């Protein structure tokens, strides 16, 4: 079993897709990760948001998020599939820095109130 690394994977879908298509996309990518031997720890749907700038003349997008554990091979496979997915406007896959856990721990060490846990982003 190759060593798994933690990643955060966010992608933006075209806004005119309905909820079933959005859910399908979320499941599709979670399944790809699982089928290749990775693990999905969190699946989130951030919902439809206004983009801070237009992407391909589109002003809105549907944000989806996965927290996963995978090998580099799985990540390159994901990237390959994403390149051909025409519903996807933008993707970001980065290593999970375990933001929340680290901050909670730091706050505990300092013995102070913890930094507020981050909410699902709301684009103004």
């Amino acid at each position, binding site marked *: 079993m190759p060593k798994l690394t933690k990643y955060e994977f966010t992608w933006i879908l075209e806004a005119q897709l309905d909820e079933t298509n959005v859910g399908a996309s979320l499941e599709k990518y979670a399944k790809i990760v699982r089928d290749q031997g990775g693990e999905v720890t969190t699946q989130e749907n951030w919902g439809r948001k206004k983009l801070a700038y237009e992407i391909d003349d589109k002003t809105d997008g549907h944000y989806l998020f996965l927290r996963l554990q995978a090998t580099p091979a799985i990540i390159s496979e994901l990237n390959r599939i994403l390149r051909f997915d025409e519903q996807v406007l*933008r993707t970001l896959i980065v290593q999970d820095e375990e*933001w929340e856990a*680290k*901050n909670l721990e730091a*706050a505990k060490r300092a013995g*102070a109130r913890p930094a507020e846990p981050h909410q699902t982003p709301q684009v103004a």
Partner: protein
Amino acid sequence: MGTMPKKKKEKKPGRKKPCKFCMDHVAAIDYKDHNRLRKFVTDRGKIAARRITGTCARHQRQLAIAIKRARHLALLPFVREHYR
């Protein structure tokens, strides 16, 4: 006699601003938390300098990466609409 030697302006050591991330005990800055990041960009959308915001070096480095990631995801603008 030429010109009078100019008196060098003495720089007053200003009061050091506290780093907001250190005050909140933030260990890692998250790119998803764009409402917080928003306070560290200028109204043109540029990353604000440390001397403006008082962010410490360690957090400024993390902040820059977080802002760039948030921009990529269209959570933050590269340039504000009305300046384009």
